[in-house]
């Protein structure tokens, strides 16, 4: 049982501050959808509007096609997992999980049985009578998920639930969350500022900045085909070059910068003057000889061995620092500092994008 969610031109104002600005998105039933953005971008406000704790100033939110205006949080088919989890410390684990059932008047034996079922689902069998304070961070996480699942929501809303966990556990819980979502088929809406989380777990990602939804796409497109400079630089690293379009044809353009002319893809929304060239470090190559096109002579200024890749900082003749990443396939050579080399990149992997996030709309 899952429901889709439509945000129809939703705005939310706090006094004079517009926290959410004309957001439109249709989330499919059973989808794992992430809102990704820096803190203060309005993503938590969106979540609070869907769950009913905050009312939109404009626009309509529909869950399963049903207008949610005037519906209290306790009347909506959503379950929210709070950033700090908000487990009830004075109740044992099973009562925490069964709280939603207690509210619905389910009798005690059934509540207990259901709580134990859900504990098994989240791999916490046998913890029913423990208190919240006896559990580790990851276990609390699972209790929070089980508590939300107990009310059989059509939509699960998750507000950065992994941010308090350490790295290893976080990666483990990512897989776990994804598995639980697949198993239950519930629509998941996930809020995060961690691009890795959003890309790894989601069916689709909506990148937000300053209250606006910048781009909605699957993780691959978000990373490979960002629509603007904000999305490109918030998700992953970039070499950013300022300049002007000299000529363009068939979606490709020649971009003149102070370190040379480059040909690159023209982004869909690349209009106006405020354009920049974005090239990801892992899409560049360093070689002793210049490439056929899009090649810059550089001097290696810094090398950092990161394990799976080698990060190289190189200076152009005009002093601009560019970054390249060399994949460590076991035979990769580490360039020497001070070596004169050529940095080359593929035109199809470089994009001309509007600079600022707000340039849109």
């Amino acid at each position: 049982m899952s429901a889709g969610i439509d945000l129809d031109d939703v705005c939310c104002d706090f006094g004079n501050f517009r926290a959410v600005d004309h957001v439109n998105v249709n989330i499919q039933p059973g989808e794992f959808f992430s809102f990704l953005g820096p803190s203060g971008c309005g993503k938590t406000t969106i979540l609070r509007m869907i769950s009913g704790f905050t009312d939109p100033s404009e626009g309509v939110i529909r869950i399963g096609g049903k207008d949610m205006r005037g519906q209290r949080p306790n009347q909506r088919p959503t379950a929210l997992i709070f950033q700090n989890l908000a487990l009830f410390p004075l109740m044992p684990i099973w009562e925490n999980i069964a709280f939603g059932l207690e509210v619905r008047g389910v009798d005690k034996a059934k509540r207990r049985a259901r709580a134990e079922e859900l504990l098994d689902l989240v791999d916490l069998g046998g913890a029913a009578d423990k208190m919240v304070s006896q559990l580790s961070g990851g276990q609390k996480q699972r209790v929070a998920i089980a508590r939300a699942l107990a009310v059989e929501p059509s939509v699960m809303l998750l507000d950065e639930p992994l941010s308090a966990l350490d790295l290893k556990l976080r990666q483990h819980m990512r897989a776990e969350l994804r598995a639980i979502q697949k198993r239950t088929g519930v629509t998941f809406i996930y809020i995060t500022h961690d691009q890795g989380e959003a890309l790894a777990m989601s069916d689709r990602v909506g990148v937000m900045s300053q209250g606006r939804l910048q781009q909605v796409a699957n993780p691959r497109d978000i990373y490979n085909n960002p629509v603007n400079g904000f999305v490109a630089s918030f998700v992953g690293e970039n070499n950013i070059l300022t300049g002007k379009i000299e000529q363009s044809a068939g979606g490709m353009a020649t971009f003149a910068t102070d370190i040379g002319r480059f040909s690159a893809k023209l982004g869909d929304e690349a209009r106006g003057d405020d354009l920049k060239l974005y090239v990801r470090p892992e899409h560049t190559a360093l070689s002793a000889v210049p490439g056929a096109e899009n090649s810059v002579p550089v001097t290696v200024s810094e090398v950092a061995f990161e394990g799976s890749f080698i990060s190289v900082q190189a200076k152009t003749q005009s002093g601009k620092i560019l970054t390249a990443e060399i994949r460590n396939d076991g035979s990769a050579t580490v360039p020497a500092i001070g070596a004169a080399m050529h940095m080359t990149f593929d035109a199809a992997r470089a994009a001309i994008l509007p600079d600022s996030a707000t340039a849109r709309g």
Partner: protein
Amino acid sequence: MQDLLRRYGMMLTGVFIFLVAFWLLMLVILPNLTLFESSFRPYLPVVDIGGPKDTYSMGNYMKVLNNSDPTSVLGIVVNMPIHVKIFLITIWYSAVATLVTFLLAYPLAYYLSKIASPKSLPTLFLLLFVPLWVSEVLRAFAWWIILALKGPLNAFLLAIGVLDQPVRWIQGYNGVMIGLVYTYVLFMVFPLYNAIQSLDTNQIEAADDLGAPWWRIHLRIVLPHAKPGIASGSVMVFMLSVGSLLVPSLLQSTNSQWFTQTIQQWMLESQDWNTGSAYAFMLLILCTLFVSLMMWVFRVKLSDIAK
């Protein structure tokens, strides 16, 4: 201690310690010990003090059992000593006052800690404190005026047509109850405010999100969390009410009597300090027992209250 010595030197530290010790010993411990000791001795003419009749006994404490008075308790007539009856009435009405203050203070404390905007808090707290700028005597007296037969309350209710004729408000223990609740309500508000404020608002929202109606949120989340605050507020209001002399004296009716008034009558009107102190210690000990019993019944630990 060493900190104190380093900061203020030998002389000043000595003065501090002497003053505190003097206050504790001479003004608190010794007077109490004297009263405690004299509570076991009979009330004698001056010439007999220290004589053969001046022996220790429980006689003063036993006086509470004198003067039986037939009293109807839940329809059953019991022969109850008059002072025991006053004591029980005092405990009962203090408990009622505690309950009423709780019922008034809880919504207020919840509003202050979870609903009111932080900006308006200073103003709201000021409004709560303003009445405290006036002495307790005047406030109790003000109530006496308000509730009087020809007082403003009756005049107002007559004027708007709620009443046909004035009501005698100060009857039985009504006046005392109103006075006690009004005087001690803040002692309930602040512990409750502190307790509720420390509750993570997300927990309230989580319960709401899981479908709980407001009353269940209070019953299952807010009240259990606020229990230490409720306990300390209740102990304070109860003990202050039981020990209050001013309010029951000023707002008494012809048929109300508070146990502290009985003690006062022994001490001042009969000039029998021995029996007066015996009654005072009895009140102290029995109230402590009663509070301990209540804490045991509601499973409150002493450490919860100290928080």
